[in-house]
């Protein structure tokens, strides 16, 4: 049965340095929550605190109906998978899976049943007698997941489980983890610095920076309506195009004035006083060719990145370099002049000083 997790006013630090300050996070039962952020922002620290591997300086951790702030990790009903796999190197796969259960005094037939189930789910049967050193990275990580699985827990914690794998295996295992979540419907908390993993796996993503959650929302919301400039820049590849300018509100709509010209924003109501802003446009919100009915500007193609199914072109317009997503068979040439249509109606606007999104 899935269980919710709740962090209430949590402070975590190492010695005197605070890594996480006054953090609140509610994770719904059965949710797949991804903690995403650059390396060193405190994701692992937070996950370890949920697991009980790091003490809180302040606040509470609740799992289900219980306050587990000071509970032993083994009593929290969690399983955890680590980046370095952390398999017991001197034991074979079967022993790796069963060791914790044996120590906990689980009856023998029950152990056999659980190991068989985990082994079947993760297709580990051919490797049961092998040691970790005789397995590939992907197999090792499956064993590590299996070790969490046999514990029959309601919450799974993953700390960058795919970071040590090569690109192909990473994709394969990502799909397996997603399937696993679908089958088990357990609560999963997953730490990564890889936005593709986050976007594909998550029900909701919590984007962290310096121990503070910047935005907690669904992948789509985070992509389309980033809460601030940090999130806007962190999510999306190529990154969101950012245009500095001034926003002037008026009755029927607003006006965006930038070095590329003045553009009307019909239907968008902003406060009347002029505001220094940054407009954010996803590459697919810049349309190539005249007649799109959008705010049009003239630009020159400076780089063409063919990626197979699609192509990204980088265009120079005054001092700005804008990226646009076009079809894979895009016919243009470098140094060619083109017309770009900016979909400002769907653009994001951020305050230049605070970096926060304007509604």
């Amino acid at each position, binding site marked *: 049965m899935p269980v919710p997790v709740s962090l209430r006013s949590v402070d975590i630090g190492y010695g005197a340095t605070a890594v996480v300050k006054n953090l609140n996070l509610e994770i719904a039962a059965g949710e797949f929550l991804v903690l995403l952020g650059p390396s060193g922002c405190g994701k692992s620290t937070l996950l370890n605190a949920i697991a009980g591997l790091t003490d809180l300086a302040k606040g509470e951790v609740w799992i289900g109906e219980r306050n587990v702030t000071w509970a032993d990790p*083994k009593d929290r009903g969690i399983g955890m998978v680590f980046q370095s796999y*952390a398999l017991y190197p001197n034991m074979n796969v079967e022993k790796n899976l069963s060791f914790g259960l044996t120590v906990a005094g689980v009856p023998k037939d029950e152990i056999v049943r659980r190991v068989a189930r985990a082994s079947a789910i993760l297709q580990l049967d051919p490797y049961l007698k092998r040691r970790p050193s005789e397995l590939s990275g992907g197999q090792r990580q499956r064993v590590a997941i299996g070790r969490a699985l046999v514990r029959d827990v309601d919450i799974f914690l993953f700390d960058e489980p795919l970071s040590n794998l090569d690109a192909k295996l990473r994709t394969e295992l990502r799909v397996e983890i997603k399937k696993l979540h679908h089958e088990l419907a357990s609560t999963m908390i997953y730490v990564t610095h890889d936005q593709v993993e986050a976007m594909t796996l998550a029900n909701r993503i919590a984007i962290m920076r310096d121990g503070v959650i910047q935005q907690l929302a669904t992948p789509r919301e985070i992509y389309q309506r980033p809460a601030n400039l940090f999130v806007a820049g962190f999510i999306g590849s190529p990154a969101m195009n950012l245009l500095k300018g001034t926003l002037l509100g008026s009755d029927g709509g607003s006006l965006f004035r930038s070095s590329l010209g003045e553009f009307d924003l019909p239907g968008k109501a902003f406060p009347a006083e002029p505001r220094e802003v940054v407009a954010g446009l996803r590459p697919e919100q810049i349309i190539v060719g005249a007649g799109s009915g959008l705010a049009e500007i003239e630009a020159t193609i400076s780089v063409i990145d063919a990626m197979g199914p699609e192509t990204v072109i980088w265009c120079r317009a005054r001092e700005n370099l804008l990226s646009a997503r076009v079809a894979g068979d895009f016919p243009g040439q470098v140094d060619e002049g083109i017309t770009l249509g900016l979909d400002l109606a769907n653009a994001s606007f951020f305050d230049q000083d605070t970096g926060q999104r304007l509604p």
Partner: protein
Amino acid sequence: MVDQPAARIPASSPARTRATGRLRLPVAALAALTPAWLIILLVYLGTTIWTVQLSLTNSRMLPSSEFVGLAQYERLFGTARWTISIQNLLTFGVVYVVGALVVGFLLAVAVDRHVRFESMWRTVFLYPYALSFIVTGLMWQWLMNPEIGIQATMRAAGWTWFTFDWTTKSSMAIYAVALAGIWQSAGLVMVLMLAGLRGIDADLWRATRIEGIPLWRTYISIVLPQLGPSIATAFMLLTMGAVRTFDLVVALTNGGPGQSTEVPAKFIMDSLFARQDLGLATAGATVMLATVMAVTIPILYARDIWARRRAGTI
């Protein structure tokens, strides 16, 4: 023979051979290695052959060239003092090696538990290793001296039943040597084990906590098996030290009481210089060499394989 960092280009790599220019090896490189070659060939190899050869002749006070086969070895193993020395060495060796391994391991584990003043503890446990065996032996000789040592102090304080006079009892004297040896070498084991413990993945510790594996069980079932190379190294160094033990015995008991702490190394020294019996001395030295090689070469070999396997799989 030696652990190679994994990042190193393997010796067989063509890039390496080309770049280091095996073809144009300067004379200077050969000249620089001449002293090492001379030492190895003349001193290490030459004297070993000389000694082994002498042990097969009927040399007594002066070297002789008359070949007598294994007669000196028969004489050696017919000498009561030699066989007693070997028995003593076995007792001493087992107690000393096991004792130092156990104490050193416990110290390493304790120091590794995130204790306060970690480096202070380490310094205290290791300093005896900086002392010579002569100094170590003398210290313990005095501590176990029944007239002025711990025993006298405890009895003066009213604990009249207290005894700590191992060096004067032939049944206990060899354990006195072992105790002093453990005191001197436990720090060495601690340092080696600590290096091994620090090499264990932090995530592995986390995994055992998540699984609720008790600490003692973690150390025995998961940590200890991973310390194999460290233990092998420590075992080898300690065994070598035990076989070589000479100064410690000289300072602590000088072989006594009776012959209760005589050891082979001392037997050889005495045969060589006090009794001037070359045949016995060289036969004894050859036996010692064979023993040491029988212990070290397999361990060196095993460690080489470990190192290669690790470099190959990661």
